[in-house]
């Protein structure tokens, strides 16, 4: 399992280079990102911190090929995906990235298992949907519809769905934002478990600074720019987090 180590040059699997993003909101231009350079190294768990409006979601969306930058480069391994067309972006998401969102975004008409199968059906080398759900501790709730699951359970299904295709990269946008403390910790444990056991390169967005303690690396954004980027020397397990 790849572990970042000081003696080996770390390989960025995905990265933003000098990325800017300008939205036009009515008559004003909003500069969401102003020249951000953030690499994501293979196998690491990165936490992206920042207050709301700092541009962290915009960055994550650009890294996940949900959005394209106004300028700058986004590279996946040696490919520049900033210049890719719609079809290529879809393929990139399909093959390499798993997403977890604040509001779970499960398909209400499909059961937990079917929500996972939705992804495994279009993947090249997927986990068995049952195994993916086992990984997040939902073996006994597999045939429930989303409306029959609690928020925390739904989020775990979302994580199982995201990792079932064995993506190289897992992007989580405020995965605990809609959950209470206890449930949030359970979800973070699952993310941590996925990162460690499957070696999935993981980026977690949060505005909750304490969560950063579980990361290998912590990047802070402020006003569309990188405020700090440092490795976390005292990594703690999610269970030890408090806020």
């Amino acid at each position, binding site marked *: 399992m790849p572990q970042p180590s000081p003696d080996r040059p770390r390989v960025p699997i995905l990265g933003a280079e000098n990325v800017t993003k300008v939205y036009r909101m009515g008559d004003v231009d909003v500069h969401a990102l102003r020249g951000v350079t953030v690499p994501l190294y293979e196998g690491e768990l990165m936490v992206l911190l920042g207050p709301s409006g700092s541009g962290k*979601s915009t960055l994550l969306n650009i890294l996940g090929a949900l959005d394209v930058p106004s300028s700058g480069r986004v590279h996946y391994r040696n490919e520049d995906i900033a210049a890719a067309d719609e079809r290529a972006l879809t393929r990139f998401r399909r093959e390499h990235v798993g997403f977890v969102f604040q509001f779970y975004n499960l398909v209400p008409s499909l059961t937990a298992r079917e929500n996972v199968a939705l992804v495994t059906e279009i993947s090249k080398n997927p986990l068995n949907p049952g195994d993916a759900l086992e990984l997040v501790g939902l073996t006994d709730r597999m045939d429930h519809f989303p409306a029959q699951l609690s928020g925390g359970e739904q989020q775990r299904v979302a994580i199982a769905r995201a990792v079932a295709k064995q993506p190289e990269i897992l992007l989580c946008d405020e995965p605990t934002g809609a959950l209470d403390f206890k449930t949030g910790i359970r979800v973070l444990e699952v993310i941590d478990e996925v990162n460690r056991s499957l070696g999935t390169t993981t980026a977690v967005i949060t505005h909750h600074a304490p969560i950063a303690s579980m990361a290998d690396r912590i990047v802070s954004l402020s006003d569309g720019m990188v405020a700090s980027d440092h490795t976390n020397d005292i990594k703690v397990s999610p269970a030890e987090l408090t806020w």
Partner: protein
Amino acid sequence: MVSVLDRKLLRDLMRLKAQSLTIALVVAVGVANYITLRSAWRALGDSRAAYYEQYRFADVFTRLKRAPDSIADRVHDISGVASVYPRIVEEVLLPIEGMLTPAHGQIVSLPSQGWPPLNDVLVKSGRFPEAGRSNEVLVYEPFAKEHDLVPGSTIPAVLNGKLHELIVVGLALSPEYVFAIEPGGVSSDDERFAPMWMSKSAIAAAFQMEGAFNDLVLRLEPGADEAAVLIAVDRILAPYGGLGAFGRDIQISSSILDGEIAQIEAMVLFLPAVFLAVAAFLLNVVFSRMVALQRGQIAVIKAVGYGNLTIGFHYLKMVCIIVVLGSALGVGLGAWLADAMLDLYAGFFRLPMTRGRIDLPVAINAVIASFAAAVLGVGFALRSAMALPPAEAMRPPSPTRYRASPVERFAGLRRLRQTTMMVFREIWRRPLRTVLSSAGIAFALAIIILGRFGKDAHGPILELQFGRQQREDISVSFSTEVDQRSLGYLEHLPGVDQVDGFRATPVRFRSGARWRDSILVGLPPDSHLRRLFNRKFRPARIPQSGILITDVLADILGAKPGDLIEVELKEGDRGTREVRISGTIDEAFGLQGYMQKAGLHELLREKPTVNTALLRVDPQWEAELHARLIDIPAVQSIHRKRTLLEKFEEQTGRTMQVITLILTLFATAIAVAVVYNNARVSLSVRSRDLATLRVLGFSRAEVSAILLGEQAIQVILGIPVGMVLGTWGAKALLELQADPEQFRMPMLISPRTYAFSAVVVLAAAVLSALLVRRRIDALDLVGVLKTRE
């Protein structure tokens, strides 16, 4: 000053403009349909009633050979008869210059003084012929127009074998020729058939009918027993060659007009109801979704102090705007279409049409009906908007409960792809919506079939009648039976390749108390130019002895092959003969019987004669041949098969094109509105799911397939149902249209018609789907995911 709520209303409507517009169009088509059909029905019905009354259209009609005028008084004495009018009616040839075959005239006598007491004539221009002027005629106006005849023009006519030059003194119409069709004809032909009117003394002189009549029309007293009168009339006229009296229901012009009016009446409620039901359903779909989407807004509006009624009224106003828009369009369209439809009818039915401006009560009814339909459609959504307590409305709605359907387990659907499963569960969750959407599509398709199927039966019927059965180029009928040997004379005329002849005689078929008047045809055994086929194109043979009768006649008589029936002759000694039925034939027209020509002569106790000759001719010599035929005194009419066919095709073709176009447009309006609105609402409901799939790496095409798959299933379910509905509707219309004793139009809908209707509906659906597809492509992935449902 526009209130804030009204401003919201207008902006909401602008946002929903495409959906509102498609629904308004369906309302418009419904309203237009009602106004068109209702106006046409009224105009035709009222005009018919007024015309028949004012011009004293008879109730009972009969032709006979010849009876002295005094006999008419005996008919008048029959109980229930109000008035009688004896006339002379004669068939004449009109060898008009420039026409290959002569046109046919039917000359009706006019009394020497005053107006005809029954079946009066409406003189459109010119005047009545003056008594004592033997060469003055009134001519049927449409025929005159075809030939540029005006008062003062002359027209050649062969009266009783002698060519006369008649002077047209006026152009006229009559209630007995509203739909002018010559005896034995298949369609009206203004170019070739001319009712004409002449003073009785002039016709009597030309046809040696002084002091006699050969046609009698009667008016009955209110409440008279028509059947009893018919029997009494036949009894009195039998010795004078009476051919059987009949009522208005069989009078050809009247029955065709009645059939048309009955057809419109059948559609007048049905068609508009379909459109309004579709509009109501779509309003329900769209407004239910809007109320669900505006849950939060409703809560806030209520929270700041607006009442439930105000909220209800707010949404109702929106519906009203759509209905008002649709109704206004519909009234305009309806007025225009009603006019166009009556113009179309004016080309077939010649009667003074009372057509005013748009009928106000009809328009008001249509608008009220569309409002009622709309309110019914949105009622449920409005009630839920009004009943929602503000505090509850602030919270998001409870999540939709999906369930695994039992069908899934049994049908092995579990093995389907998850995306297919999404489509299936969505349909399963809202079965009623699926059923109603499919029903809308089905009706759209059925409407197209109803517009087109009429033409489908024409092809095979024409092929059967004119291709297989009537193999001659020209048929010549004689005013009386002629010696068999005259066929030899015809054979030597220029251009004649082959000649055949047959003998037909009017008879009454009777079996016990049941009877029908019809004709009995005697065909030679080796007839090349006239053969018999049943409706399935199988050739039929005439038995060596006995009689072959149409199966409908057998049913009427309650007789079957092997039974003896009575044949009452109306020619010769007018005796009654017993004949054995040796077979039945399933024919498309009439109630006739067939037997060997020799057998018929034996029955009539006459020498071999013919009254119709059939000719196969070389087209090069046709003009000369016709010139020679006209000179033969006994020739009563000449029919050229190709001309008949061309005329028929031309007439039905044009009408059919117009009707197909209009109904196709109407059906398209339904299909587009159903698919577009369903897809838009579905997109609104499921944009979050679809965006999620896009994020997970599904392509635009894959995501569109989920949303549009649902619509596709509704359309695909609707297509076969529509075909069945269309077939039923066609059958029902057919039964209204034709008198089965005269014409049994086969129930035939061609694969082309089914295919055409399916293609139109599919094309409309695909077009609507493509419009929605653009919106799916433009889904805001990030935005959708950022919001809580």
